[in-house]
């Protein structure tokens, strides 16, 4: 427990910087704690993260602004504007401010002394240059730059910026080319409550978007953000899966659903490859040809080279595509077969077929686990009804019939992992290092299918306790196999043990 406490302290002292590389700190901690308690370490495939609710996100901005306000001796509003200009990097802001305060203030559009948004009586001969109205009746507004506009125009202008353009970081004076900005208080003085609420929502969004160690949970209707302090540059060797409090597991690096063990860059490449129909096109070119006469596509399914187009009855040679009539009696072997041109065409065809077959091998397994996960869920829903029925008619408690849900959840997450192991394997260069990976993958796959099969068994009332035990045991085992796969792949990534066909780092 002492170790955890010191971990925590270390954390806090670095809390301010988003540029701090947490890996270094974590490694030092590990060396220390290694000797004391091996188990206190997180698993190789896990990252440290924090779930923040919306109110915590709001609070974090206030806390940071308070801190800066105290350190730099500026108002809370001004501190907020400075932080926004510095993407909430407190260290960099303070450092810059110590060196060249005026430059920093100008960049953020912050003016220390003067009051913002002065309300004035329209001067003699005033014409608002937005609405061109010259009736000097209402009040006019202006900032220290002296550019004044009538109050309704100012309100319309700010409303347009906030509601239509979603602007919240810096809103300038409406005059063309004027770089004076309005602070939050000035905006609040002009716009209605509804617009101000929107402005605050936009600010919260910008806070998370600008902050490299934060990401919104992508689950629909979830308002949480997750904080993860690993550097983005490390996501080629770490797969930062995080778990939101809402139950959604997702990748902090790219926002997609959990894709361990494949790093983000690999996932991106794989998805692009699967979406590209060029592979399909390759298949077509490897397996079909067009009839030389009517251009309809012909798929070769037998070994004989004497082809007859089903549509136009044109007879031709599959090898050289020439009319069959010219082949005379040498029908058993096209004599143009050894032409350099034909040889090249054949090599090309063989190559593209081999690469396609390799892709399909991995793709089919990848797609199959996705499909199977759906079927598992369907099966579960059906079984669940049966279990409820059973619960009503037997001695079993609700908790006792819950084991299926647990098992299906394990099964689903294992299938998702397995699925990505195939994308991982597709890019992996074979070596003696990869044998262990393949063994682990196979063990997980066998275990997953065994559990899946067990769930398909018809449920008999008398044997339910027995089944429950079997299922739970199997689920624990399967989960263990998954951990082995993840642990090995994560360590391999961290140690640079894996070699991939295409450089993944550059694609990140």
């Amino acid at each position, binding site marked *: 427990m002492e170790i955890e406490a010191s971990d925590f302290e270390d954390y806090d002292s670095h809390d301010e910087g988003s540029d701090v590389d947490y890996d270094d700190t974590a490694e030092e901690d590990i060396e220390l704690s290694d000797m004391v308690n091996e188990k206190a370490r997180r698993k190789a495939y896990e990252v440290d993260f924090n779930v923040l609710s919306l109110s915590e996100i709001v609070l974090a901005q206030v806390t940071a602004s308070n801190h800066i306000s105290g350190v730099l001796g500026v108002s809370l509003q001004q501190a907020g504007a400075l932080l926004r200009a510095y993407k909430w990097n407190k260290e960099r802001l303070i450092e810059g401010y110590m060196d060249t305060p005026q430059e920093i203030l100008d960049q953020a559009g912050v003016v220390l002394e003067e009051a913002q948004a002065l309300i004035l009586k329209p001067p003699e001969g005033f014409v608002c240059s937005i*609405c*061109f109205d010259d009736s000097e009746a209402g009040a006019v507004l202006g900032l220290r730059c002296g550019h004044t506009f009538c109050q*309704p125009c100012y309100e*319309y*202008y700010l409303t347009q910026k906030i509601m*239509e353009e979603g602007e919240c970081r810096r809103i300038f004076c*409406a005059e*063309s*080319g004027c770089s004076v900005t309005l602070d939050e208080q000035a905006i609040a003085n002009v716009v209605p409550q509804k617009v101000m609420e929107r402005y605050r929502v936009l600010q919260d969004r910008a806070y998370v978007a600008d902050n490299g160690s934060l990401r919104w949970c992508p689950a629909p209707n979830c308002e949480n953000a997750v904080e993860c302090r690993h550097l983005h540059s490390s996501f080629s060797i770490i797969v930062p899966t995080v778990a939101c409090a809402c139950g959604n597991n997702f990748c902090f690096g790219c926002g997609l659903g959990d894709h361990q063990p494949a790093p983000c860059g690999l996932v991106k490449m794989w998805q692009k490859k699967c979406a590209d129909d060029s592979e399909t096109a390759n298949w077509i070119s490897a397996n079909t040809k067009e009839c030389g006469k009517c251009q309809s596509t012909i798929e070769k399914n037998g070994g004989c080279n004497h082809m007859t187009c089903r549509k136009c009855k044109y007879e031709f040679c599959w090898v050289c595509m020439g009319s069959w009539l010219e082949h005379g009696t040498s029908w058993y072997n096209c004599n143009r077969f050894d032409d350099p041109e034909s040889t090249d065409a054949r090599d090309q065809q063989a190559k593209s077929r081999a690469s396609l077959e390799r892709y399909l091998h991995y793709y089919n397994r990848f797609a199959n686990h996705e499909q199977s996960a759906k079927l598992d869920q369907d099966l579960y829903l059906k079984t669940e009804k049966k279990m409820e029925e059973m619960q009503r008619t037997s001695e079993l408690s609700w908790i006792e019939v819950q084991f299926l849900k647990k098992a299906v959840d394990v099964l689903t997450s294992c299938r998702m992992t397995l699925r990505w192991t195939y994308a991982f394997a597709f890019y992996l260069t074979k070596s003696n290092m990869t044998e262990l990976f393949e063994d682990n993958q196979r063990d997980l796959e066998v275990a997953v299918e065994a559990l899946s099969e067990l769930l398909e068994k018809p449920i008999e009332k008398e044997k339910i306790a027995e089944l429950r035990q079997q299922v739970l045991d199997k689920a624990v085992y399967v989960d263990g196999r998954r951990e082995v796969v993840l642990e090995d792949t994560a360590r391999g990534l961290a140690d640079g043990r894996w070699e991939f066909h295409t450089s993944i780092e550059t694609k990140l």
Partner: protein
Amino acid sequence: MFARRLSKELKDLAMNPPAGVEVVDANDFKVWKLSLAGAPGTLYEGEKFQLEFNFGPNYPLESPQVLFVGKDVPIHPHIYSNGHICLDVLYNHWSPVQTVASICLSLQSMLSSCTSKERPPDNATYIKTARANPKHTAWAFHDDTV
């Protein structure tokens, strides 16, 4: 709210037009056509171009959609052959104090400072992919000296 502004702009344009600018057609507050004559002593001297302004309901809070129309689109490094104009004040540097007249002046000075009549280097690809409304293009402004 802003109809008054456009009617005043129209009056000003009629009474006090910037050099070389003429209102061709302004029957409503939605679409205006203006002509722009190349300034004397510039590469465009003697040429006349047609400009179309489309005003949205939020004008002048939102910029109008402005493009060259007709068969003569100025040959200029910031003007695409489909009439789209790469000029920051028309897009992200728009300010509601800009007017039709001030836009015409900006365009006039853009033409006048041109030293070599040529299309933007990416003209061919741009016109193939661009949407009809130039405001839907994500403009990158690099060089406003040309």
